């Protein structure tokens, strides 16, 4: 899947760019070079519709002089000088940040489980065979169910980060993932469900994910009549919660947003922000974690970071640049990097962000079934539409669900065709929160990877049946 010398080639490119930086008199520089390769198969209308493969990559350069920085990206080393000059031009017009220096080399832990040779050895034909298996699993689970969308892919990403202060880091990460939208269209009624799984290692078994997709397409059929709007208990499955959780809480945990008072948890450091048995950890060293790295995007060693402990906000996340800037602007007295710089790709400079965000409880957990049993009158929500419209600065949201089950006296009595779900996520998590014993990794959002159990929110949410 990837040339044996991929890392060497990236090192060579980065070295050439570094040489140009030196020739142009750049005081401090940081170069990132990336290359990705992969195969993928698309599923639509119950069949494989397309197989594709390829590779892409490029280079980004950050220059820094007396606290002023600039960045540029480009496709080929031959464009490097021109790009460096553009980055220098940007730097010359940028405000100086007192104390902003690129990090120096400090030893870092390596993270296990990020590269699986079995994924690298998958051929396009292997990936197509896996797509066949998914289609077959769906057919076995319910012959009326059709895969109307989705796909499967395997890939590898190689990256190199070097800077003028001696950091020289390289590594490869594998990825294997699939998604499927299952639809049952029968007797004039169409129901569907979307599920997916993504991993750094080879996914062996598609059946659990397929079963879940088929199950939700089945249980949402024959909807019952919705009742009146009510403030009630809502059990969000891990899958249903993740899109909302990822919109609201990760941005609240960023030090820069707190300092600028843009975070819903600004000025709450040391205060109770969640129910007092809940904790949130950002673990960049998680074995096999989707967002794990030995070093962050600026080359600073990664770590596991406790942010909320027993409901109290105890820490926030910083990168080198934003910590220096917030101190320089006088917004905080002291801040330093927590090794939390992230970068979407070589096409942009590092910013600060979460990695693997894990929600934990010190209370006794229950199975999903037992959580349902504890509901007097409420709903189970497995997916929502419009999570991206949630307001991260307030925690307010108003979304729609077509995968929502009505629960009375601990028993699911049927599905609603559609319902609105609204409230404030921060308030809903501030008391009377109960969690299942099954924490699941939920995809990879731009705000990080979410590791969440099923969560029963007893207060603060409103359901508006269609």
């Amino acid at each position, binding site marked *: 899947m990837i040339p044996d010398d991929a890392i060497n080639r990236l090192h060579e490119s980065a070295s050439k760019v570094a040489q140009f930086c030196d020739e142009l008199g750049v005081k401090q520089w940081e170069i990132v070079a990336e290359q990705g390769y992969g195969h993928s198969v698309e599923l*639509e209308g119950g069949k494989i519709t397309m*197989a594709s493969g390829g590779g892409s990559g490029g280079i980004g350069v950050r220059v820094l002089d007396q606290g002023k920085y600039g960045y*540029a*990206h480009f496709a*080929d080393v031959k464009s490097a000088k021109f790009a460096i000059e553009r980055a220098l031009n940007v730097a010359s*017009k940028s405000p100086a940040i007192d104390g902003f220096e690129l990090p120096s080399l400090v030893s870092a832990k390596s993270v296990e489980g990020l590269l699986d040779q079995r994924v690298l050895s998958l051929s396009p034909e292997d990936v197509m065979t896996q797509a066949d298996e998914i289609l077959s699993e769906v057919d076995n689970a319910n012959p009326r169910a059709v895969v109307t969308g989705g796909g499967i892919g395997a890939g590898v990403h190689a990256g190199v980060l070097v800077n003028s202060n001696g950091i020289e880091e390289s590594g490869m990460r594998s990825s294997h993932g699939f998604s499927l939208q299952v639809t049952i269209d029968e007797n004039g009624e169409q129901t569907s469900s979307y599920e997916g799984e993504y991993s750094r290692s080879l996914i062996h078994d598609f059946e659990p994910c397929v079963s879940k997709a088929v199950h939700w397409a089945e249980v949402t059929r024959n909807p019952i009549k919705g009742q009146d709007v009510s403030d009630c208990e809502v059990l969000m499955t891990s899958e249903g919660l993740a899109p909302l959780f990822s919109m609201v809480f990760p941005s609240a945990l960023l030090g820069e947003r707190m300092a*600028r008072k843009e975070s819903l948890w600004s000025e709450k450091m040391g205060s109770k922000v969640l129910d007092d048995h809940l904790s949130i950890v950002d673990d960049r060293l998680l074995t096999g974690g989707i967002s794990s790295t030995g070093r962050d995007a600026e080359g600073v060693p990664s770590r596991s970071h406790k942010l909320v402990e027993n409901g109290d906000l105890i820490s926030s996340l910083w990168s080198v640049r934003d910590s220096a800037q917030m101190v320089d602007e006088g917004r905080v007295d002291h801040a330093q990097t927590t090794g939390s710089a992230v970068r979407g790709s070589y096409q942009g400079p590092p910013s600060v962000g979460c990695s693997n965000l894990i929600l934990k409880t010190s209370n006794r957990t229950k199975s999903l079934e037992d959580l349902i049993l504890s509901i007097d009158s409420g709903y189970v929500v497995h997916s929502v539409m419009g999570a991206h419209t949630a307001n991260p600065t307030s925690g307010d949201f108003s979304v*729609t669900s*077509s995968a929502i089950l009505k629960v009375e006296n601990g028993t699911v009595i049927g599905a609603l065709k559609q319902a609105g779900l609204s409230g404030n996520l921060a308030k809903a998590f501030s008391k009377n929160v109960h969690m299942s014993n099954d924490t699941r990794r939920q995809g990879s959002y731009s705000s990080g990877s979410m590791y969440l159990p099923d969560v029963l929110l007893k207060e603060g949410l409103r359901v508006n049946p269609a």
Partner: protein
Amino acid sequence: MVMAATPSKANSVDSRNLDKSKVNKALDSALEMGATYAEVRLVSLSTGTASLRDGSLHRAVPGQEIAATLRILSNGSWGVHSTTDIQSIPQQIEPTFRLANAVASRRDKSHKSITLAEVPIIEDELHWKPKKDVRDIQLETRIELMNQVHQEANDHQNIISVQCGWSDEHIHTELMTSEGMDRTWSFQRIMTNVMVTARDEKEVVSYRMRHGGEGGLDLLESVDLGEMGRTCRVSALRLLGAKRAPSGRMPLVADRDLTGVYIHEALGHPCEADLVAAGDSCLEGKLGQKIGSELITVVDDPLMRGGYGAYPIDDEGLDTKKKLLIKNGVLNEYLNHRETAGYFDLEPNAGARAQDGLHHPLVRMSNTMVLGGNHHDLDDLIADIPHGIYACGSRGGQVDTGRGSFQFAAQEAWLIENGELTSPLKDVSVSGLTLEILKNVDGLTKDAKLASPGFCGKGQTVPVGDGGPLMRIKDALVG
């Protein structure tokens, strides 16, 4: 060297990147192997992004990218290879041909093989040149224009943060096909945006706006950008005191932004013929049927210059054209590309768009708009509403195309009481079933226009425009 390995200099990326004879030879080799069609589409991008935070430059990133996608159709199935290593394309003909055949070998008899609708074979160049080329914009100009927004947005003690953003891009595309198509085209887009955060002792709120479209610097220089900052400031401050919206079914009037988001999400996506073919559209089998109020006429028009979704030639090399999706409530046309036009035996209507050179074309919208109606203005629309909602500014939306359900959220709203706007509201979302809402539209103002620029995700992200008039829905599910 088979083809140019790097983009040409920043200000001349319209020069040719693909070597005609070498690419033709590669495409011919695909046909010799047994392929029925092959194409190489190369996209070279020159981009400039920048942002201000509280009036100070936060980041600016100039960039250049080049990538190409090879598509081969063999035995009725696609094989695709995408790469930034442009030189490697000839070596990928054979493996990509094999990929297509591997897909074809899995197709059972119940599934149609792919046939492409016939299209005119054209060899030409077409460049939409703005008055002021985005590649000539100096960083100082970007900062100065963003500062016009910032200064107006920041003018109140409760405004705690103003973030201004900027993006411009020059898109240069070359397409060569085994049928002899050889087209090169280019165009530009530009946009600025602002997000204002306001805070008081009780809460923190934000409001955001965008302005931009297809074109060059002149597009932003010709408007009062300060007005965008003022509007955001006023709206954010108003949200601080706004109440939560009531929940339930009630009349709703949508502003131009929300009319656009609704028509994009709820109607535009189900009109995409690839979703129809996949059995994932509530509009399957409804061509020619009445699906909505007679007031509703909807167009999708990539030739609406200045709209953020405008483009001169689609990514399969077809001349673009206006599509009339709904005419007086009757479903008139799907958006299609060559594959779906072939599948449904329809005239191709140039709806193929790819995110960039690394992605293959999908059926996508461009500038989607509801045409105007008979009401004069907002007052006219709300005059006979005893209790309802006027919702403004989009926070985005989402659709389940198969079930025909959708959701969109407003940035702010007002309660309508006895024909007048009264209390400001926040956190308004609207959901429903596409076909139900289309039938419930009972009023449109005359002045249809495109609203704010947007982005549409469908596995790939493309810029789009959408809009229309103010639209009244007599019964909508709010909250």
